[in-house]
């Protein structure tokens, strides 16, 4: 073994973090949480014994940091294989690739995320702005600090919730456990640490950003769906109407003043094709948005 046996919990966690370097940040957060919970319980069970002695025992029962890292990376691979759908077969033609998105469940869930993001975006934004302003306003009172700490606590919970939504709908691996707060330090240091943690601020930034992003996503999705569906349905309705299967009361009274440039015989199939292309283009867009949002969330919500 190249690394020395850890003597304190902090050392153990540091070594575990080093051993997991390069792994998914979300996986690292979960592994560190589990290890810290176990180590502290073991330490609590063996009160009075020197920390180094207890840790030596832990290394043989729970596993050395390198072993634990290996177990977690292994497990992640198995779970990932078990849970993810097999990658779709690669279509040989460009046209095939374009339409293959229709069979990708991820594209539909990303489209749904785009619609949902307006609601979550408004909520996150309101929560953040109200929380920050109240914290600042109350900061002249002692209670202001308590309030700010409570508010930051809620943003951590919210960021975990958003992480769940993103992992389920967009397929980006996000943490399932929060970050352990530092122990054995005073309340003052802990609160200061919360303010100094860049993740606190990047989480706030993410929540504020979610309003414009949510509005954009929602608008794109709604406009895209409405436009492509009407493009597809208009020619069908037109044909049905011309052969008399569908009656549209006001259609007979519309006069185009001879401004129709494209004859219906050409316009109908053209619109239909355009609508289909728009619909699949929208699915591509949704998948792209999903990827972008996953990367953004990982960068701002996970350390």
């Amino acid at each position: 073994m190249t690394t020395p046996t850890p003597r304190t919990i902090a050392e153990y966690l540091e070594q575990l973090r080093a051993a997991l370097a390069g792994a998914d940040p979300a996986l690292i957060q979960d592994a560190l949480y589990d290890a810290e919970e176990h180590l502290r319980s073991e330490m609590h069970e063996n009160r009075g014994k020197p920390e180094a002695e207890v840790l030596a025992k832990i290394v043989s029962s729970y596993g050395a940091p390198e072993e634990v890292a290996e177990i977690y990376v292994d497990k992640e691979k198995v779970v990932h294989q078990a849970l993810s759908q097999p990658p779709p077969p690669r279509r040989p033609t460009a046209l095939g690739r374009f339409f293959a998105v229709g069979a990708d469940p991820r594209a539909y869930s990303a489209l749904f995320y785009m619609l949902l993001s307006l609601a979550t975006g408004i909520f996150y934004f309101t929560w953040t702005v109200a929380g920050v302003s109240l914290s600042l306003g109350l900061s002249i009172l002692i209670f202001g600090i308590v309030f700010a700490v409570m508010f930051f606590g809620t943003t951590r919970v919210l960021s975990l919730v958003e992480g769940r939504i993103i992992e389920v709908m967009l397929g980006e691996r996000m943490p399932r456990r929060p970050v352990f707060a530092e122990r054995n330090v005073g309340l003052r240091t802990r609160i200061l640490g919360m303010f100094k943690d860049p993740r606190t601020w990047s989480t706030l930034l993410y929540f504020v950003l979610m309003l414009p992003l949510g509005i954009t996503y929602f608008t794109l999705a709604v406009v895209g769906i409405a436009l492509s569906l009407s493009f597809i349905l208009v020619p069908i309705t037109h044909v049905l109407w011309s052969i008399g299967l569908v009656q549209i009361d006001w259609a007979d009274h519309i006069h185009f003043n001879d401004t129709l440039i494209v004859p219906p015989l050409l316009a109908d199939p053209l619109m239909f094709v355009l609508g289909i292309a728009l619909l699949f283009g929208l699915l591509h867009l949704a998948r792209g948005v999903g990827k972008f949002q996953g990367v953004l969330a990982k960068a701002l919500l996970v350390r």
Partner: protein
Amino acid sequence: MDETDSHVRKFHKELSAGIVSLVLLGVLARARTPMYGYQIVKRLDETGEGVLSGKQSALYPVLRNLSAAGLLDSEVEPSVTGPPRRYYRITPLGRRVLREWSLAWIATRDFVNTVLED
């Protein structure tokens, strides 16, 4: 000696993959109150032999996955003396799954035994 050693280890690893989930569900189904990770690990440590005598850290991801699959419920409770603990309890779905798994386990065990006894 070394030659068999690596084979035994590999076998343990493969064998434990499914059995650990079954054992964890079983322990929690028999528990009267919700249990936290460390407690479950210690319970297995007292009685565990064979394939389950691996590193305890392997149990935590399994607990998390069972919980993510809806077979276990979990909640965090702060404790007065120690660190906050995540308590797990089995869900009704977990109990139904455990029943199926137990049947599969018993059938497999009996089958393996008859093969080995011949």
